[in-house]
């Protein structure tokens, strides 16, 4: 057994004839929040799709919780939230979650638990299609929390949320990690980077850095992570 929840070596992915992930290698420690940061279109989503096993890859290996990515036993152990909400718009939040919970064989009590965790208890009976953008993405996040997965892969879960909600969600991510879960959270907002235990900085399909936030600042001699990122882009190109 390896100590890391996730080990990626030499991953290469092409989409539409263009290399989107170029020879990326890293490991993600268990029980921590790892941020995957980089501008829009840098390959974050493709990398996440490779980790949850739905992306056809060109080369390299992805090992998730000790198994090759996409292995059937992993389907119950990973929670994945796509950036665009993937949840039935013509069901209420509770009905949609009930279905995904049934698919995961998660206990029925999980539905109300995850609704409360994302702060949607007052809206549980509303149709998903009638929710605001922020509520919609939180309902999408709730699906990933069903069944208490060991690894959570969350693609831009806080996009479009007001600062209070964002703060609440990051507090939730912290609680989940403290409870032993491993989180990989993507974002293109640098101010969220400081809340992660480790950071993966990505640009144009290449991993620029894999470090703790404070170590990254020390190494680049900068005081904020935005500057650290810029420094890395300039020195590596």
């Amino acid at each position, binding site marked *: 057994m390896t100590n890391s929840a996730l080990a990626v070596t030499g991953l290469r992915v092409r*989409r*539409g004839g263009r290399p989107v992930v170029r020879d990326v290698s890293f490991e993600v420690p268990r029980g921590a929040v790892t941020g995957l940061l980089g501008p829009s279109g840098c390959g974050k989503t493709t990398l996440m799709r490779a980790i*949850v*096993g*739905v*992306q*056809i890859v060109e080369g390299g290996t992805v090992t998730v919780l000790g198994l090759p990515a*996409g292995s*059937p036993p992993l*389907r*119950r152990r*990973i929670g*994945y939230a*796509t950036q*665009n909400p*993937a*949840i*039935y*718009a*013509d*069901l*209420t939040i509770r*009905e949609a979650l009930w*279905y*995904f919970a*049934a*698919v*995961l*064989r998660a206990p029925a009590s999980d539905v109300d638990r995850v609704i409360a965790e994302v702060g949607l208890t007052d809206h549980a009976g509303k*149709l998903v299609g009638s929710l605001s953008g922020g509520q919609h993405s939180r309902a999408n996040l709730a*699906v990933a929390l069903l069944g208490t997965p060991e690894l959570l892969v969350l693609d831009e879960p806080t996009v479009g949320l007001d600062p209070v909600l964002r703060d609440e969600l990051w507090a939730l991510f912290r609680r989940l990690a403290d409870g032993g879960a491993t989180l990989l959270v993507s974002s293109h907002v640098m101010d969220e980077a400081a809340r992660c235990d480790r950071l993966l900085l990505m640009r144009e399909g290449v991993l620029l850095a894999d470090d703790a936030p404070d170590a990254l600042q020390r190494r680049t001699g900068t005081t904020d992570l935005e500057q650290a990122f810029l420094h890395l882009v300039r020195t590596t190109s």
Partner: protein
Amino acid sequence: MNPALTLATTRRILTQLRHDPRTVVMLILVPTLLMILLRYVFNSTVVFSHVAPALLGVFPFLIMFLIASITTLRERTTATLERLMTLPIGRLDLLFGYALAFGAIAVVQVALAAGVSLWWLGLDLAGSVGMLLLVAVLDALLGMALGLFVSAFARTEFQAIQFMPVFVLPQILLCGLFVPRDDMGWLLRWLSEVMPLSYAVEALNRVTASSTVDAVILRNLLVVACCALLALMLGAATLRRRTP
């Protein structure tokens, strides 16, 4: 395969429909209203009795084809399919879940259209009502399975809608409804023989015309059922866990 997951999927689809009552009302009433319209267009129970059995199969076939292709296309384009593919559910659990949900609707749809045709519009039925319902429901399931399958080749809802004239209308033109299949030239005759709807319509005509369940009816039922199953299996093959 896991029956609990199949039933969960069926329940989910029926719940989605319950939130769209207008669709449910149309699904259940439209074939019946068309049968009533047909009866008064011909204005004769004799002519109506001649074409009605075939149309009891054709209308549900057509409607189920459309509904199933749009629903699955929506599942593909809204990424809920991708999410399901990361979860512990088999592709056949999903497809049989669809088949059960739409099959249940087809039973109600066909039962109402057949009931109104028999007891109000004067359709003369020699065979058993049960057999008529069985053929018509199988026919609706065939439409559903074909719709599921071809939705894999549509990228947009515009394309999906246009698969209806491509895959469904030729079958309706060649099934023996407009011209008896024996009067067709060899090419059209051959085409009509490889199209599953022809077998369904022939079975419906026989059930209406004769009270005996002969070998032709049973063979045709088997052909329609196998075609529906084949289309479902092909549909399952188009659901991919990994995509580019």
